[in-house]
């Protein structure tokens, strides 16, 4: 079974062999490294760009305008913030040109904490990304979604932001329904086939397994765990954490529903509505700093449209509004949601009597 990062690599391989991807590029994306997280090893269209994020986004825009299918990587989303004007431009080009030019490009970038990455390798990007009109935005939490969302992003005619949760890159499928159609059963075998060897790689070529197409629809959430007492709506790294929390809470008789949003724009509002109408209590969880946070948008809409369904105030569990995520364990843990925090928040919501 593939890890999440192998799933990305497999999708890129399928993208460049079957769906017209012409360029997979960014800093250290090409040989010999194939990406700082190995996401782009062995891909025939992968190449190393200059160390210039503005050039990476700009060049992807130009490639897209010229009918190519680029997948541009920003090495860490922490370093994307000098390109926000270009991202806005990519998102408004179709609209400003009254439909004349679109930007069928994918921007792929690792996000989130959980690897003791300190101030500049722990950032989230969902607040900023969701505030930029004209982009679709996806964020997987397991290998199957990572694979299927990336293929959907690749064939999408619009710019798509693909956020890869850093802390889950080595995560594997949690059961058979999180598997990639056609992937080998044997992890060791898969690794041998597609992971670049240590040392000299100049003679190495990957053996790609015959994986099948899979398009996870952009805009469709997944119910990660059904439950009836409290809804937890989350995505990315905090998704498995929420499932874990639900398992713990089940021991106390609290039946938690966990929804994996997967797409942040467009997002699956009907799935949220259905869950809130069932549980009447909802917690939104994400890793971003909590002021002007995408979870606050979801709360606003929940309050706006479902006010009389709510048996308790909807809650947000998000990152502390501090300037960075500190390196020391104590600091990181105090800055972004942890398992205990989710358990506590759900417990409090459940206990709450209207």
């Amino acid at each position, binding site marked *: 079974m593939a890890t999440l990062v192998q799933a990305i690599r497999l999708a890129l391989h399928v993208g460049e062999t079957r769906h017209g991807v*012409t360029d997979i590029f960014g800093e250290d994306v090409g040989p010999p490294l194939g990406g700082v997280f190995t996401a782009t090893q062995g891909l025939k269209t992968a190449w190393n760009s200059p160390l210039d994020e503005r050039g990476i986004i700009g*060049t992807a825009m130009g490639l897209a305008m010229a009918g190519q299918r680029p997948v541009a990587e920003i090495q860490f989303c922490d370093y994307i913030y000098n390109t926000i004007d270009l991202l806005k431009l990519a998102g408004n080009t179709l609209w400003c040109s009254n439909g004349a030019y679109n930007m069928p490009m994918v921007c792929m970038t690792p996000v989130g904490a959980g690897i003791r990455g300190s101030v500049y390798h722990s950032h989230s990007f969902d607040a900023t990304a969701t505030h930029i009109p004209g982009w679709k935005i996806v964020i997987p939490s397991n290998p199957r979604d990572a694979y299927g969302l990336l293929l959907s992003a690749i064939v999408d005619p619009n710019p798509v932001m693909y956020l890869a949760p850093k802390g889950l890159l080595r995560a594997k499928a949690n059961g058979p329904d999180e598997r990639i159609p056609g992937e080998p059963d044997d992890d060791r075998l898969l690794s041998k086939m597609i992971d670049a060897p240590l040392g000299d790689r100049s003679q190495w070529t990957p053996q790609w397994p015959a994986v099948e197409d899979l398009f996870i629809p952009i805009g469709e959430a997944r119910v990660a765990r059904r439950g009836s007492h409290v809804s937890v709506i989350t995505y990315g790294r905090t998704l498995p954490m929420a499932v874990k929390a639900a398992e713990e809470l089940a021991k106390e008789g609290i039946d938690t529903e966990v929804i994996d949003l997967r797409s942040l724009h467009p997002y699956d509002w009907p799935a949220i509505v259905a869950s809130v109408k069932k549980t009447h209590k909802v917690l939104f969880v994400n890793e971003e700093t909590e002021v002007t946070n995408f979870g606050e948008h979801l709360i606003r809409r929940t309050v706006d449209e479902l006010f009389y369904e709510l048996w308790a105030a909807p809650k947000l569990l998000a990152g502390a509004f501090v300037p960075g995520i500190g390196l020391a364990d104590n600091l990181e843990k105090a800055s972004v949601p942890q398992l205990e925090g989710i358990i506590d928040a759900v417990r409090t919501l459940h206990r709450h009597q209207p």
Partner: protein
Amino acid sequence: MTTTAHDPAAASALAPELLLRIHDLMVKTRVLEERLITMYKQGDGYFWIGGPGEEAFNVVLGLLTHKGRGPAYDYLHLHYRSAGTLLALGANPVDFLRQMKNIASDPFSGGRNFAGHSVIPEWNVVPITSPIEVQYSIAPGTALAQKRSGGKGITIVQGGDAGTAEGDFATCLVWSSRRGQELPVLMIVTNNHFGISTPFEGQHGETYIADRGKAFGMRTEVIDGNDPENVYAALSRAMDYVRTEKKPFLMEAMVSRLYGHSSASGANYNAGEADCLTRFEAKLQARGLITAEACEQLRAKYTQELLEASKRVREELPPEPETIWNHIFADTDHVGDAARGAAKSEGDR
């Protein structure tokens, strides 16, 4: 100057028909700009920005462009002073009036964008945008597609002098000159010696902006952009090099800013700047290729045509409020359930 390009021999190399064609387009462009300014002053638009003073350069650029759609043809990443280039390609001047009047029929933006922000996908004219210099970060992308396709298409990217201070200008230098992976990019700086109110002097350590290409092994040239014959020769050489060698070239053209920066600075004629049109007309007249009277007539003809067009445009309809929701995404115009539906069907492919 890096290369002195004012070569009288080259001038005489152009056929009289071509010279008259250039002149015709220069007049047409100038009259269009003047009409746009008048529209602004009469309240038929909120803002004017354009290229009076750049006609000699821009018209010739349009004439030399290989126009068409896709990587086999030239890509044009222009700026908001490029009407001359677009008219030379064959654009309809009335479309510029429509954008000025921000009406629904504005083909460039449907009444969304300012005058001078053209887009013509049929001829690879990518959207002209307000942010200064971003086109220089985007241009390497179209050029890479062209290099790969193996055709004769090149990427042309143009901007002003002050804007070269943005990092994007350096991005274009870096990305288009990587050794062994050079890109067919013609970088053009149209130097009018000002950024809004700020003079060139005091902001630049470079004597010539074009010199910045040298460290990157790029060919460079500084030219007088007010003389269309000179421009023709220099641009022909530069384009030929880029097309054949598939390597970048940086050209700096000295031009005038005849009506100031934009309507924000009044948009009045500045007699202190060299006027490429009167200069060229004097030359053509001296050579007996056209009479002063014929020049007057040509100008009067276009003036009348555009005056009438501006009246028609005034009667056309504004965009409807709900059109703000159009063209957010290519596959669906509305966000939310509709987009979700679209995504679902996509999954079924």
